[in-house]
């Protein structure tokens, strides 16, 4: 028997159509996965060297979500601070009006002292505002309430300074009858020196405030941080505390008219300054809020871009996958049909 050119063995004749079957089945199964998930069946294999980028993109996506969440928290801290600041401003304005009224009436001193006391209590409460997790005016030392109640804390030192200066009854200098004899010049000197000393940096942090000078902040982009609150140590807060204490704690009810006017004048002036400073702080926080809003907007945009990129890297065009699946299915059917046909073709059937 001679070798025939272009001959074929029975194994190749019947097997060649079959050879493609496992490959086709694998491809159909992959196309099925791609259709149902919308992603490539084996993302790592299809991306190769680009797989690292895909891991990074997914991480960046998670990072954007977590940043957006923490910026929302920062926004809420800012609004909280703004609310407290505007309350303080309106308290201060009410106090200023009351000072004018107090000056006009005879028993104005007693009323003014009363009002100053309650405004001071409101200031303390405002500074100790907490959002449940942190004291927002405490700066980074946010775990402890920043300011002590006036009566329980700084009052002792103020009383002592007052009593020593004017030789008053140490137990209750405000009600000592000698208070009425204090002259305007003496009062001015006391306010300028001993009293102001109570609010120096050292005494403020010793007797009044446990807050840190560094306010709460949030990072908006990369390492840039913006303040999300102010602290109890700012000049505005100290001025307010000083003015309210002046009127509330120096026996204003019993002072001579001249001395009382010195106190009221000084307090009015300080509160006026403080209101301006509060407005400036509010404006600063408004800028922070603005930057946070921009950052959130930028993050949203970046998120969309990342989603698009992930889609481009890993995604599969559903229409294309469906078409591919149809083509593969047809191919597989043809392969089965061919195998069947070839099996039937035998010389035995024709002899």
């Amino acid at each position, binding site marked *: *028997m001679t*070798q025939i050119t272009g*001959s*074929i*063995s*029975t*194994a*190749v*004749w019947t097997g*060649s159509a079959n*050879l493609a079957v496992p490959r086709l089945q694998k491809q159909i199964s992959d196309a099925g996965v791609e259709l149902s998930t919308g*992603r490539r069946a084996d*993302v*790592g*294999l*299809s*991306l*190769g*060297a*680009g*797989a*690292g*980028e*895909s*891991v*990074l993109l*997914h*991480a*960046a996506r*998670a*990072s954007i979500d*977590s*940043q957006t*969440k*923490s*910026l929302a*928290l*920062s926004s809420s801290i800012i609004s909280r601070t703004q609310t407290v600041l505007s309350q303080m401003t309106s308290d201060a304005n009410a106090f200023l009006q009351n000072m004018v009224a107090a000056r006009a009436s005879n028993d104005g001193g007693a009323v003014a002292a009363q009002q100053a006391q309650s405004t001071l209590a409101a200031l303390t409460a405002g500074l100790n505002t907490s959002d449940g*997790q*942190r004291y927002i005016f*405490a*700066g*980074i*030392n*946010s*775990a*402890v309430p920043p300011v002590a109640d006036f009566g329980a804390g700084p009052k002792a030192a103020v009383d002592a300074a007052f009593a020593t200066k004017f030789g008053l009854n140490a137990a209750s200098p405000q009600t000592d009858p000698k208070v009425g004899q204090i002259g305007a010049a003496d009062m001015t000197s006391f306010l300028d020196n001993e009293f102001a000393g109570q609010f120096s940096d050292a005494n403020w942090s010793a007797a009044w405030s446990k807050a*840190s000078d*560094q306010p*709460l*902040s*949030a*990072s908006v982009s990369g*390492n840039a*941080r913006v303040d999300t609150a102010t602290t109890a140590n700012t000049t505005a807060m100290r001025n307010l505390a000083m003015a309210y204490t002046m009127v509330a704690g120096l026996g204003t009810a019993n002072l001579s008219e001249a001395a009382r006017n010195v106190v009221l004048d000084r307090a009015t002036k300080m509160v006026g300054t403080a209101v301006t400073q509060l407005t400036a702080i509010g404006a600063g926080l408004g800028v922070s809020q603005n930057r946070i809003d921009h950052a959130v907007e930028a993050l949203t945009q970046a998120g969309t871009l990342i989603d698009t990129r992930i889609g481009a890297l*890993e995604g599969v065009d559903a229409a294309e996958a469906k078409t591919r699946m149809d083509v593969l299915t047809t191919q597989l059917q043809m392969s089965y049909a061919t195998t069947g046909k070839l099996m039937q073709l*035998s*010389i*035995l059937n024709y*002899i």
Partner: protein
Amino acid sequence: MSLSVALNTAQSSLFAAASKLSVSSRNIGAANDPSATRKIALTATTADGGTRVVSITRASNNALYVRMLQANSDSAASSAMNDGLAGLQTTIGDPQSQTSPAARLATLSNALTAAANTPDDPALGQAAVTAAQDLAQSLNDASAIVQKTRAEADGKIAASVTHVNDLLQQFATENDAVVNGSIRGADVTDAMDRRDAILTQISQEMGVSTVSRAGNDIVIYTDSGATLFDRSPRTVTFQASPALDAATTGKAVFVDGVAVTGADATMPIRSGAIAGLTKVRDQIAVTYQTQLDEVARGLVSAFAESDQTGGGAPDAAGLFTASRGSNAVPPVFVAGLAGTIAINAAVDPSRGGAPSRLRDGGMNGAAYIYNPTGAASYAGHLDGLTAALNATQPFAAGAALPGNASVSQFATASVSWLEQQRQSTTGNLDSQKAVLSQATGALSSATGINLDQEYANQLDLERSYQASAKLMGVVNQLYDALLAVIR
């Protein structure tokens, strides 16, 4: 020409047809054996004009056979590498999943950013520590998987070597049968088929090249030139390693005393399963382990704490320690670091630590405290840690990745590297499989059996047998007529 000569011719033709039919039926019987070749009965005309079958040969095509062997070896090597890489790929999983160290590292980085934005929330600090623990664990796991992949490859090499030795013994038996049979002039075609089948199996394990000698003798060399078989089988030796870790190198395979794998191989084999497995065990897995180790070292050094008092004490391990209880910061590559990296006991609540030390520092004593007042919303150190994660640092050259990168970039590059290896190996495997299938098909078509053709031949032979028998009948009648005349 006499009647008896005519009778003789008819007789020899009858025998020849019977022999050919028997060869053809052998072909039909072997049609389903992929290694069987088509047997051919060669006939010659005798002096008195008859025909007889002088020998039986087989259809062969050496060029196609050699090409099939080569394709077989190449595809076996790629297949072994592909299996190894698939094992290593389980350390990564889907890029979307949180399996890979790179993804875990990104999660840690996010957790740190979240903690830095709200440092006074202990839950976020705790979350960052948990993320760090997951990262350390994923590096430990990945390292274990890499070493398991190496150990598996080592075990498979041992199995391959045993198989090759067995096959060489079988080859010796068949080769002896062929050589001895050829001397006697016997039919050796079946033995030759079996010998080829054994050689095909050997080529699966290691690349081979063959030289044919007189008397149908065959000498086998590895594709690098070491002698596997020359009249007698040579011994292939390999010592499997009972345990492999990042610091140990697997043993080499020796053929007839010559090293054919490993760094010191004088004749390194290029294809076959053993070559592929060796590449997985000694190169791919080792490089990947180096990358993991360098990620681990990068983490220990990025999170290291420095002396805050100005006392100049050396940096000490912070959130990540090179191993449990150690506070050293390794300055250069340490093999196996990924397997031992752990989070610092000082921040691990399950070991009596406080997660707040991540915010405040001080895992190595008072000199390393960054937040001396203990302020609850202090973010400076956490910001610093995020910056350190993204800061460029040097990495070992053995990792086959850029030498200067941030830990995050390095970990991501490692993912890319592995997937790229996988992609290129899968591509190679696919094309080599196609080549193998094409070469096998071509060989089978050239030397294999076609049932239809055999059947058609048998019809031919049947006719020839009938004609010869008829002729004998005619001669018989002539004799009868002649004898009747004489009587």
